[in-house]
């Protein structure tokens, strides 16, 4: 089984960043600050992690790139609307849900282009197998719908990236550890069995209100949407106690060819919007989990509304991707004042109450795994060999033949392996399609066609 592969050799890691990303501004008082990506970038560079990264500047995604998922109408609106001509778009703003959580700010379209461009480039790089891990902290905007902005997200770079991955990968797994439910991605792939979406999120009176345990997908995609609803104050250990078993099961049953991990940092302790109580270690453990599998991995950003902790988290996860230890003391960088008063990388968990008691988590885990058990092994694409150790005896051919019922046919996998010598003249299992007869027939046909050819040749001459 393609289980965990211990660290063998180093992984090639691509890192996508555009220096303009930090200068987009959602508006006064808005909690989403693209500046956090620049802070991350500065930390990554000043830690010296660039020595293990291939740093790329992605091309901005084109209109056509983005309409591979989004509707033309919606993208045209995003492209043409700006704060100056806002009034003429009143109706469309209502329709596309732009204006409240998702304000119309200056340079919005370019911002979308950059974030989507990063994920598209990362997916392309993975497709070409030039790298093993691709990181795009500019992306991860998982709420955006096909023709609707939502939750600070306008274009869904993750969906675009997964669509790109699907060109060369049969099955793609999407995992979302943002505190909010990854509704945009789940909706986009709700009815397909080629993408499994797994989201761990706060559920209950919380944005966006979707992501119940019972939402498991529809149509062909039934059972291919997995939701793990959690409550306030979950700690590192509690989170891992449910994350690892569920994800191990998913990897076993779904066996993805590529994984996209959304590393929303609002599940950390001290976030302005998220009520979870994770530290970098628990959060980063999720990234480490997927790194240990030998599948192409794309890591994208996402939520995170306390910029200093976002920068810390994503820097730490970059270091996990390149498998480098980084010191706890932050290096000097342009924004070091933001990291006061302790100027350390890691953050402490708070003593907030964990409303997820172990019994609840156990039950939740059992429910999720029960759903996963219902999955037929690996859908709509070729099957992998069944694990050898499941029925060890079956390997022994002679044992099967000995135990076989004399009045029934042998299992085909045994007969397939049997080689009948051409010299054998006894009636065996295959009476109808005897190979010797087949051969004869073939030969006769060859003679016929040969004759035909020889007959024709003189005519042409």
């Amino acid at each position, binding site marked *: 089984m393609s289980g965990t592969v211990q660290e063998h050799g180093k992984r090639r890691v691509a890192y996508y960043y555009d220096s303009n990303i930090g200068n987009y*501004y959602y508006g006064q008082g808005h909690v989403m600050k693209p500046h956090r990506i620049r802070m991350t970038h500065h930390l990554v560079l000043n830690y010296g992690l660039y020595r293990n990264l291939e740093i790329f500047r992605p091309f901005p995604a084109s209109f056509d790139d983005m309409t591979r998922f989004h509707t033309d109408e919606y993208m045209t609106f995003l492209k043409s609307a700006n704060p100056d001509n806002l009034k003429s778009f009143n109706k469309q703003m209502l329709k596309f849900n732009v204006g409240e959580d998702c304000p119309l700010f200056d340079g919005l379209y370019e911002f979308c282009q950059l974030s989507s461009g990063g994920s598209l480039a990362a997916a392309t790089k993975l497709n070409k197998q030039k790298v093993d891990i691709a990181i795009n902290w500019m992306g991860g905007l998982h709420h955006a719908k096909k023709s609707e902005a*939502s939750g*600070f997200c306008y274009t869904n770079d993750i969906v675009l990236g997964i669509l790109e991955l699907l060109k060369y990968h049969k099955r793609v797994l999407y995992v979302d550890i943002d505190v909010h439910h990854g509704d945009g991605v789940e909706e986009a792939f709700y009815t397909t069995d080629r993408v499994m979406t797994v989201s761990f999120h706060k559920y209950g009176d919380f944005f966006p209100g979707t992501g119940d345990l019972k939402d498991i997908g529809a149509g062909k995609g039934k059972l291919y949407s997995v939701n793990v609803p959690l409550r306030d104050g979950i700690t590192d250990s509690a989170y891992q106690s449910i994350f690892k078993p569920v994800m191990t099961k998913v990897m076993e049953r779904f066996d993805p060819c590529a994984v996209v991990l959304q590393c929303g940092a609002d599940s950390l302790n001290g976030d302005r919007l998220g009520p979870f109580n994770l530290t970098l270690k628990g959060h980063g453990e999720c990234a480490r989990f997927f790194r240990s599998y030998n599948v192409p991995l794309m890591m994208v950003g996402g939520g995170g509304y306390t910029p200093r902790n976002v920068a810390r988290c994503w820097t730490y996860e970059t270091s996990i991707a390149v498998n480098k230890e980084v010191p706890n003391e932050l290096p000097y960088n342009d924004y070091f004042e933001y990291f006061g008063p302790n100027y350390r990388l890691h953050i402490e968990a708070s003593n907030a109450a964990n409303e997820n008691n172990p019994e609840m988590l156990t039950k939740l885990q059992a429910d999720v795994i029960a759903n996963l058990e219902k999955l037929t092994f690996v859908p709509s694409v070729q099957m992998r060999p069944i694990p050898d150790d499941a029925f060890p005896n079956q390997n022994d051919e002679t044992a099967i033949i000995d135990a076989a019922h004399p009045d029934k046919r042998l299992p085909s996998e045994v007969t397939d392996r049997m080689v009948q010598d051409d010299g054998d003249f006894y009636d065996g299992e295959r009476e109808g399609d005897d190979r010797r007869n087949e051969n004869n027939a073939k030969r006769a046909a060859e003679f016929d066609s040969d004759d035909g050819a020889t007959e024709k040749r003189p005519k042409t001459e």
Partner: protein
Amino acid sequence: MDSFFSNGTGDASRTDNPDSMMEDTEVDASMEPEQIEVDDETESHEDSPAPSKNKIKNTTKSIRKRRKRSSSCDSLNDSEEGAKIRRPLANTNKSINVGDEFQARIPEDIDPKPTHIEDPDELVWETPEKINDEKLLSFAKEASDRYRIPIDRALWILTKENFDFDAAILNIAKRNDHRDLWTDDEVRTFHNVYSLIGKHFVVIRQMLPHRSLQSIVQYYYENKKRISYQAFTEFNANASSSSEETEERPTPSDSILEAVCDNCGEQAEKMQVNEALNRIECRACLVYFQLTQNPRPTCLRIVLDERIDRHVECPESMINYMDEYEKLMAPSTGYTYVKRRMGKDQTLDDILGVNRTPPPELNAEFLLESGVNEQNNPEDVGAPLLSPIKMCRDGCRAGSSKSNGRIVDYEMPINEKEDFMIELLKEAEQNSTGSSSSTQNKTTPTVWQAPHTLCMEEMDVLSDDSRRKLFEACLSSSRVNTKEVNSWKNDMAYLKDRMERMSIDVDLIPSILMSNERVQYKQNWTDHEKEDALRCFQWYGNSFNYIADVMGNKTVEQIEEFYAENRELVDTVSDIQPENF
């Protein structure tokens, strides 16, 4: 700068809570319990969807379902009022929809091999196989620390230079002056506008038409932690609302008949009404007010004739300072950055890169009227260059012809300021003729930037080094070594002193240069000082100058006074002791 130093004296126990600094003005409002608001919203919308399990309808693709509009859209109209108290992401009633208009179209066919499409990206950096790791690290450190170039850019240059470290460093040194610098004027405008309207960068950009929005946002983030913007945004709400309320036009007062500006008191031909302040002002004052939202400081007034004919003889004693001034005002060469050594063996003087200036001589006569004005106006002390200083050196007489000796004319900044003001005037006129300001800004990008001077460069380096010091201090706050902390405190105090003095030196504010304040001359004599003084009298006899020099903290006059008071004692000491030698 001062505010930075005052709370960053290397003290390990910094009390200010970073959270409070980081969060925006609306945090408090958004900290309110979420439930109340959510309840309000669900009540007001009867069509709010049922709980989640019913939301997901496993309809097949062919059946298209009308989407339920969620509450966020309906409340859009009153978003302006609600924005301040609304918690972000308040909508918890979204749903997953099924149908062609919601799901992504998934490509059916899978290519076994990726075709060779071009990468949609550009390689910035890839570590080559054979590279000296230490050299690479030190290269990156040098580029970022000494030349203050972002590391990724430095790496890109290194790649372009084919991994030749020396060539790359040379290249980087050359690029030094291309940095995005903000002039004092721009900084002041930014702060003024920011204090009035807050973080509306689009509006701020209209005041800084030659700056891109991105550049403004970047400036804000880079300085956010160094300047406590919150402090001066406090009064913004009141100020802006009051200016809007005073709609009524003031009746033409007497001043309009007299044509005297209410602000500066000057006569002018065209007077206009300043609606915000409800008074009549001249054009210059009005433009100033429109730009900065502050009344134009009267002491800044540059009267034309003052500018033309005021040549002041440069006193002998000031020539040194003028030389230094000239040196510091020279265009920046980046030399300070180059000279700067980062590492353990540096001393403070290495960091500072400037030699100490000798203390000023007190008896020099110095005439500079504008200097007094400057002092009165705290806002503009930082930019005395704008005042009409003109100095003749080498004994050139006031008012005499310029051919007579060398004239050092520091008019250049003034001229530029003038040009700038003229441009602004033009712009203001254009705006007032009815064209919308936003389009105006796009069509006429005015480019004006004061030259980057040596002095600015040194200030730059200085402030950066101070930040570094602070950073080091904070880093090792956990293992506090009182000795170290004390030495840092001293360092910081020295830096602060240095900084203040430098800005004063550069400013050349005569009243401060001439004042006695810079050295404390205490009136009281301690016993210790008295002993010292007596010993001095032994050695130097009655040469009061020497004694004052040696004592350091007493003026010549004070020594004389002391002598007069303790004549007998001194005389006995100075008469007897020398004979013993």
